[in-house]
């Protein structure tokens, strides 16, 4: 029954899309075959819906309905609009890699400066040289299959063993095409002992009602120190579905921060595997949602080896009739003794109709571990609000100060000053849009 639904529903539009897109997609004949297979998987499954456990709270059939046609390659007009958006969203001191409607834009990127410290290629050229494994994942998730089928471009970054990046690298996804979809896939490899900060930003250059389906593969070696920041500030009527596959080596520190301030419907699903002992993973997620926005952060942290620490802190600020979802699963494999894995969710509900779903899951197969989860949800504290108002702050300003404090705890985890200031600024702009 599900299959029939998928085919008659959203499957059909993509079917046409795939036929027309196939010729434009990069890759050798072997890759073309892999794409076709991935697409068939998607077509068989259709868009995920609430009866699929992992998508219980984010029913894409109900929320999105239809997959939009592939965006055209950006023309000169699109690139010039994108250039303005890049200027507005570039982080001080960072080096940029820009994708416009899913296509790498060399002229807007700092390829030279980055190439001095790392290897940077596009997905397109990588696939043309037949690195087909970049499109393969073990996942059977329909949106990931769809991404494999249609991934047009992306960046392929290699940071060598021991490299110490002198500046953060910012991958900026700019949308210029309205009512179209962009499929990107990137891979970031960070070698042993390397130190790097990389940022992913999603922004709109005037585009409306577009869809983003992104996939990112991150592979980090031993003894590395990595900060990974993702800032999703897409248009308020856009859809952004991103899947991340992260593998962490031994004795490595990974700080991941995600903030969602845009998008009508968004989901970040991260699959993080701690594959080497002695590593520390810290994840801070912030959702700032209003109107009827739906924002989903789904994380699977897989402790595959002993002696790793993972900390997940998720904060949601939910206004109007918005809906925030946090699903956190911690898997502790039988060998992974001395695992220390904790997650904490805090939701701030700014309206009676705001909704927060929190689904923690612990799958523990080892006996000597310390794992846990906690959750709180509530409104702003009236006593604190009154104190601020009695000191002259109008209601919205008093709320804004308390909301900033609430998300500030997560933002403080960002070590780089310029970057932290940028993120604080994004949160402030979100608060200004509220009032």
């Amino acid at each position, binding site marked *: 029954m599900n299959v029939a639904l998928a085919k008659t529903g959203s499957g059909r539009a993509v079917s046409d899309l795939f036929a027309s897109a196939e010729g434009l997609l990069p890759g050798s004949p072997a890759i073309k075959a892999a794409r076709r297979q991935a697409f068939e998987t998607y077509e068989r499954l259709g868009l995920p819906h609430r009866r699929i456990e992992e998508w219980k709270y984010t029913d894409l059939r109900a929320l999105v309905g239809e997959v939009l046609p592939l965006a055209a390659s950006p023309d000169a007009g699109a690139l010039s609009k994108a250039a303005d958006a890049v200027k507005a969203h570039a982080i001080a001191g960072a080096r940029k890699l820009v994708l416009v409607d899913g296509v790498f834009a060399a002229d807007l990127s700092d390829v030279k400066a980055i190439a001095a410290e790392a290897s940077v290629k596009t997905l397109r050229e990588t696939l043309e040289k037949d690195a087909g494994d970049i499109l393969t994942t073990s996942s059977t998730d329909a949106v990931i299959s769809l991404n494999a089928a249609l991934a047009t471009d992306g960046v392929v970054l290699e940071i060598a063993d021991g490299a110490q990046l002198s500046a953060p690298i910012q991958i900026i996804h700019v949308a210029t095409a309205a009512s179209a979809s962009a499929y990107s896939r990137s891979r970031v490899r960070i070698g042993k002992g390397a130190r790097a900060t990389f940022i992913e930003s999603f922004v709109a250059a005037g585009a409306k009602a577009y869809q983003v389906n992104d996939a990112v593969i991150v592979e980090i070696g031993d003894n590395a120190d990595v900060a990974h920041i993702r800032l999703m500030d897409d248009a308020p009527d856009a859809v952004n579905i991103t899947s991340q596959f992260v593998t962490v080596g031994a004795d490595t520190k990974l700080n991941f921060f995600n903030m969602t301030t845009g998008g009508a419907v968004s989901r970040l699903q991260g699959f993080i595997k701690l594959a080497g002992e002695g590593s520390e993973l810290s994840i801070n997620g912030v959702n700032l949602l209003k109107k009827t926005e739906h924002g989903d952060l789904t994380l699977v942290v897989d402790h595959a080896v002993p002696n790793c620490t993972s900390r997940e802190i998720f904060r949601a600020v939910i206004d109007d009739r918005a809906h925030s979802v946090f699903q956190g699963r911690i898997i502790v494999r039988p060998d992974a003794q001395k695992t220390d894995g904790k997650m904490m969710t805090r939701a701030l509900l700014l309206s009676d109709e705001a909704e927060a779903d929190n689904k923690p899951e612990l799958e523990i197969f080892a006996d000597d571990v310390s794992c846990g989860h906690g959750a709180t949800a509530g409104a702003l504290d009236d006593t604190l609000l009154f104190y601020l108002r009695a000191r002259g*702050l109008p209601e919205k300003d008093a709320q804004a100060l*308390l909301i900033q404090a*609430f998300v500030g705890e997560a933002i403080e985890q960002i070590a780089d000053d310029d970057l932290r200031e940028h993120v604080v600024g994004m949160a402030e702009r979100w608060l200004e849009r509220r009032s």
Partner: protein
Amino acid sequence: MPLLEVKDLKVRVEEREILHGLTLTVNEGEVHAIMGPNGSGKSTLSHVIAGKPGYEVTDGQILFRGEDLLEMSPDERAAKGVFLAFQYPVEIPGVATMTFLRTALNAQRKARGESEYSTPDFLKKVREVSKSLNIPQDMLKRGVNVGFSGGEKKRNEVLQMALFEPSLCILDEMDSGLDIDALRIAADGVNALRSPKRAMVVITHYQRLLNYIVPDVVHVMSKGRVVKSGGKDLALELEASGYAQFEDAA
């Protein structure tokens, strides 16, 4: 025109009447003390003047320079010059004291149509005031009242009062939790703010505070009413004989 006129004020909290027709008039330049047993409604009165939600005014009026205070939001009242130093100042984690002070001061100035303080002017002013109140600068970097001792919280209230320069200062048990030295420093801070244009309402249980902040008028509150008013000697009388004589009057 009086600065503050509370006329026959009746206030309910959760269906229970706490103030049963309270009347109080405060003129510019005056210092009034309000004393009274626990639960007599002193904090309730101060909260209603400041505009705290949750109180139902069923009768009476509060006028501030002739304007109806009850029609104004708490922030409008603050901008007009009403300041309440809380009996129990709250802790606000994540909001740095400096940010809070600047945001509040500029919000009040903006509401009055005045220009915002420049950062150097603001910092200079905070430094002066905090120094006179013996408040170390690094305390101001912390979250509002977070990890402050009881006495430090009270001094932080006086700091705000000095910074915002309100025309009506209500001090709700400013002396509770202060050691003798801290009490003197805080009282000196309050006295420094005494001016012919500014009035103070000092709520306290102890005559001792009134040795430092000498009142023009002392009121005795009991069971939701002002039952007696007099000069500063009334406080001494209370210290000697307690409230029992007034309980009947109320």
